[in-house]
């Protein structure tokens, strides 16, 4: 009788093992407006994509600077802070948000102080702008030491329309880097 009980218990445990395989439904794409809104980030917003990065030490990764759900953007000033003791800035590359426009300009200032200042502007025909979601820059880092660090936007970031009128940025996303 003991063996039968053990057999039934094992059977139930096997069933439970199968049944608990149902994955939890998680939608956390930082560029998903619904998801970010649920997280309390209103648009238009500046986001990092991906917003969570798990890498090994000395490994290189790329994070993109995204404008989420913006309207009539013709220029941007973006200020990013990072932990320079843990992350090593490798390079900064232009994004695709203005790639369809004519002759966009990109500037960046890095002072090795854990701060990156990025400028981009479009000098084209009048009233040319972009709307929606897109990346301004791609920034390449390397994790110099293990540990967690964050990427944050400065509060003085600006988005402007073709008339150089400032567009209100309602939300700022954060990036999290876990170096092992």
């Amino acid at each position: 009788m003991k063996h039968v009980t053990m057999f039934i218990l094992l059977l139930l445990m096997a069933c439970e093992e199968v049944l608990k395989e149902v994955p939890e439904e998680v939608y956390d794409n930082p560029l998903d407006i619904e998801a970010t809104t649920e997280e309390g980030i209103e648009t238009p917003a500046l986001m990092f994509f991906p917003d969570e990065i798990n890498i090994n030490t000395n490994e290189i990764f790329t994070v993109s600077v995204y404008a989420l759900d913006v309207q009539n953007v013709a220029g941007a000033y973006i200020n990013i802070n990072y932990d320079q003791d843990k992350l090593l800035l490798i390079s900064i590359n232009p994004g695709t948000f203005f790639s369809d426009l004519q002759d966009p300009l990109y500037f960046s200032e890095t002072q090795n102080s854990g701060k990156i200042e990025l400028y981009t502007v479009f000098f084209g025909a009048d009233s040319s702008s972009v709307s929606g979601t897109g990346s301004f820059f791609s920034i390449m880092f390397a994790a110099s030491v293990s540990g967690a660090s964050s990427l944050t936007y400065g509060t003085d970031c600006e988005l402007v329309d073709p008339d150089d009128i400032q567009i209100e940025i309602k939300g700022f996303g954060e990036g999290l880097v876990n170096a092992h």
Partner: protein
Amino acid sequence: MKRLIFSLFVLTTISFATVTVDGYAYLENQSDHSGINVIFKLHDTGTVSDSVTTEENGYFTVQVETNNYFITYEKDGYFSEDIKPRGTIEFDANTTLSSITLIKRTKLIKFANFIENKVVDNYQKLNFPQKILEKIQLADTTSQTSPVRHHQSETSHPPASEPAIRFSKHAAPPETTGEAGTSDQPPASNLATRFSKNVASSDTMDRAGASDQPLASNPATRFSKNAVPPGAPGKTGPYLQQTITTKYRSTRKPPAKTKMGAMTRSLLFPGLGQFYANQRMWGYGWIAAEVVAGGLIVMNYSNYKTAYDDYNDYHASYANATDPVLIAHYKTQSQNSHENLESAMDDMKTMASIAGVVWIANAVHAYIVGPTSGETAYNEIPLQLAYDQNTDQFKLSVSIPLD
């Protein structure tokens, strides 16, 4: 007076005269036949009066007083043998005894010997043979002949006229049968002994060997130990072979069938308990029900796995997408897959519950239709007909299992 003294002298001389007794005794399949003890016991008192040991060639000789003796041949590891007939002989002159060959003990023969001794002892002590005989079933000579013991006696042995097998003392090869009948062998009336030690000549053995039935002259015997001469069907040629057909059934009965046994089996596998309880149709029914439930579980599990894989794919695409349109698309697909996943899981749980209920119901049913405690796996009719030599009557024994 002189005549009286002379008469006493003659009588004393005659009374205490000694004679020389010699002969040969051999060991089966041995070249050195020394060490066989030939023991002479007085017929009247049973005390050992003389003994002698054989030489390497098996010869022995001894001086004994004229008297009536039991003569026994003994050696460790071999079956002892008594001189024929009935182990007693009277010597009033120098005598050369018939040669004898001792058979080596084997496990089977030991076993048979043990059974024989057990039965004989209890039969004699209790005078109630049924108790032992119930434990040793009537030889079913129509079914099988095992255990079968084949003895091989070298024909090159000098006067190997006495196969001297304990259970077939009267066995003899065909060419010696007639001779044995006039010398060492018992009269025909002795064929039906207590344990049915049957002599079978070649013609009768054809019949007995084919049907494996005891001889007609001894229809009611507990044991049927037939000595089969060479040339009998299925036996090898030049060797003397003897078959012991003592059917022994263990006194340990098969375990009784119980309701718990049926339920346990059905818990292990649906329908097994019903088969155990001889409810075959129910057994097939429960198996079919469980197979159907299992099939539905497998089908739902397949749907579940498909939805699971779809969900993982769509979710990975959603997480990596940067285009809002694609994000929305993959999100929708992912949500649909997750719904399918949950639906398949619910169905699978439902079917697993049904299968579990069917399983438990099958176990309960097995318990209900399970065999009662009086029913055992021992299905033979417990009637036995046996011949009791003490009363010279046939007896019918009935055994009723109490488990």
